[in-house]
C-alpha cells in the first residue's frame, strides 16, 4: 500500500531551524495501525529517500491523533547557503509513493 493511498494528510515543516518534521494522518484507526505495524520499514525507506543515516530518522506513533510523525535533521539549517526550502513545507513529496 502506498502512503498516499492510506493517509489523508502527508505534510512537512521545520521543527525549529535545524529539524524537518513530517506528519502522516489517517482517516481511520485501520490505516494508522497498518503503518504503526510497519514503522521500522517506514524508517528505513525514509532514511534512503532523504539520504539520512537510519539513527537520525526518528519515527513516532501518536495515537491521540491517529498520526505518525517522522523527524530528521534538515540538509542545511533553515535559510543557510544553498537551502532549497526555508520553511520546509515542501519536503513531503518524497513520501507520497512509499509503499509499505
Amino acid at each position, binding site marked *: 500500500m502506498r502512503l498516499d493511498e492510506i493517509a489523508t*494528510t502527508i505534510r512537512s*515543516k*521545520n*521543527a*525549529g*531551524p*535545524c*529539524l524537518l*518534521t513530517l*506528519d502522516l*494522518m489517517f482517516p481511520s484507526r485501520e490505516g494508522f495501525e497498518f503503518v504503526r505495524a510497519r514503522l521500522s520499514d517506514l524508517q528505513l525507506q525514509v532514511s*534512503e*529517500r*532523504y*539520504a539520512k543515516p537510519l539513527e537520525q530518522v*526518528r519515527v*513516532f506513533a*501518536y495515537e*491521540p*491523533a*491517529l*498520526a505518525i*510523525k517522522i*523527524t530528521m*535533521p*534538515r*540538509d542545511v*539549517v*533553515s*535559510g*543557510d*547557503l*544553498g537551502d*532549497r*526550502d*526555508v*520553511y520546509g513545507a*515542501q*519536503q513531503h*513529496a*518524497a513520501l507520497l509513493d512509499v509503499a509499505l
Partner: protein
Amino acid sequence: MSAALRLAEAFARGARRPLRILGASGQLGYGVPSPALEAGLERKPDMIGCDMGSIDIGPTYLGSGTMATTRAGAKRDLRKVLRAARSLDIPLVIGSAGSAGAAPHLGETLEIVREIAREDGLSFKLASIAADIPREAVKQAIRARKVLPMDTMPALREEEVDAASHLVAQMGLEALRRGLESGADVVVAGRACDTAIFAALPAILGFPLGLATHMAKIVECASICCVPGGRDSILATLDDEGFELESMNPVRAATPHSVAAHGLYEQADPFEIREPGGRVDLGQVRYEAIDARRTRVSGARFEPATAIRVKLEGARLVGQRSVLLCATTDPRFIERHETIFAGLKELVGSLACEEAPEDYSLFFRLYGVNGGHDWKMPAPAPREAFILAECIAPTAERAEEVVRTTKQCLLHYGFEGRLSTAGNLAFPFTPPEVAIGPAFRFNVFHLMEADDMERLFPVTVEAL
C-alpha cells in the same frame, strides 16, 4: 488599576472562576478576520493574546532587524486588537514583536502602538519587554559551560556571539507575568515563547501550569487547530481541570482529532512542550468532544526543571545576494545540467577571479528537477525547467559582477550534444539579474542556563 491586577485581586479573595482567553492571531500583521474577532469580543474574554513572530521565517529578519510583514499590515492588525482590548478594558499581550523580537522589531512595534494610541485617542499603560541578550552575558555563560547547542548546531564560540547582528532569547511566561504585574494594560514583548503570551495571566491567577501551557500552545495559532483550519480568533476557557476550545468562526470545528493533530504541528516531539522553566508532559492528555464544534482537553502535566534554560537565537551577515532568473526548454540541457553547472562554475571562476580571490558562493537550483527538494529517486525529465542562479559575495557589486558573468557564460555555454547554438536560456525579462540585498544565516540557536530573568528581560512601563 489594570484588568489583570483586578482579576488577581478577585482571585485572591476567593472569587475563582474559569478564565476566557481569546487567541486573536498567530501572525499579527497578515490579517485578523473581523467577524471572528468581534464574535470573540461578544463572549467577554478576560484577555486577548497575539503572536507576532517566529524563527520559522528564516534568518534574514532577525539578522537585518526588519519585519516580515509590511508596516501598514502590522499597523492595521495592531489597531484592530488594541481597539478590541481597550473597548473591553482587558489585557492585550503581544509576543515576538515585529517578526523576530529584537530591539529594532520591538522598537518599530512600540512606535506603531504609540501612533495608534495618539491617532485614536486611546489612553493606557504600556509595558514593553526587551529580549536582546548582552553579548558579555552569553560569553560568560560559554566559559562557565552553561551554553548547549540545539539539535544539529555546533557548540557556540565567542566569535559567533560577536558576529551575530542581533542576539535574542525567547523569554518565558515569567517575563510576561512581570509585564502584566507592572499594572500595564498592554504588554508588548520582544522574542518570546508563543506559550508565554497566553500562559502568563493564568499563571498569575494560579491555574495549573501544564494545562495553561498546553492551552497556550494551541491558541497561539488561532483556529489552525480546527477543521477546516484557519486564521480566525479562537476562544479557550480554562479551569483547574482542563480547557475548552471553540473557534469564533462557526464554519470551523475544534474536534478531538483536529486538536490532537495540532499537537504535531512544527513540533519535533508530539509528547512534550519544552519551556524555559520545565517541560509539559502530554503523554496522558485526553481530548473529548463537547459538541460538534467544541473540544475539552485535559491531562497535561508540568514538570519544573532544576535550572532555567532560555533559547538563544542569533543571525549573522554572510554577504550580499544577487540572483539570475531564467529558463531552459532544451531536453539535452536538462539531462546534462549537473555537468553544465559544474563546468560553468569553473568558467565563471576563471573569468571573475583572475585579479580577485574566489570570495563568493555560486549555487544553481533547477526548478522542475531539484529546485525545491534534493531528490534521491529517479524521475522522468520535465519538458522545461526554471534556473535560479544565486551568488553570495562580500559586496553587492561583486555579487552582481559574478551573476552577470554567469548569465552570459551560461547563455553561450557549449555542452556535449548541444544543438541550440544561438543561446541556452529563455529570459522572462531583461535584466534577468536581481540584487536581493544582505544575506544572513542562523549562527546562534542554543540553550543558555540563566537565573537572573529580570536582568535578561527587563520590563519598561510608559503611560500613553
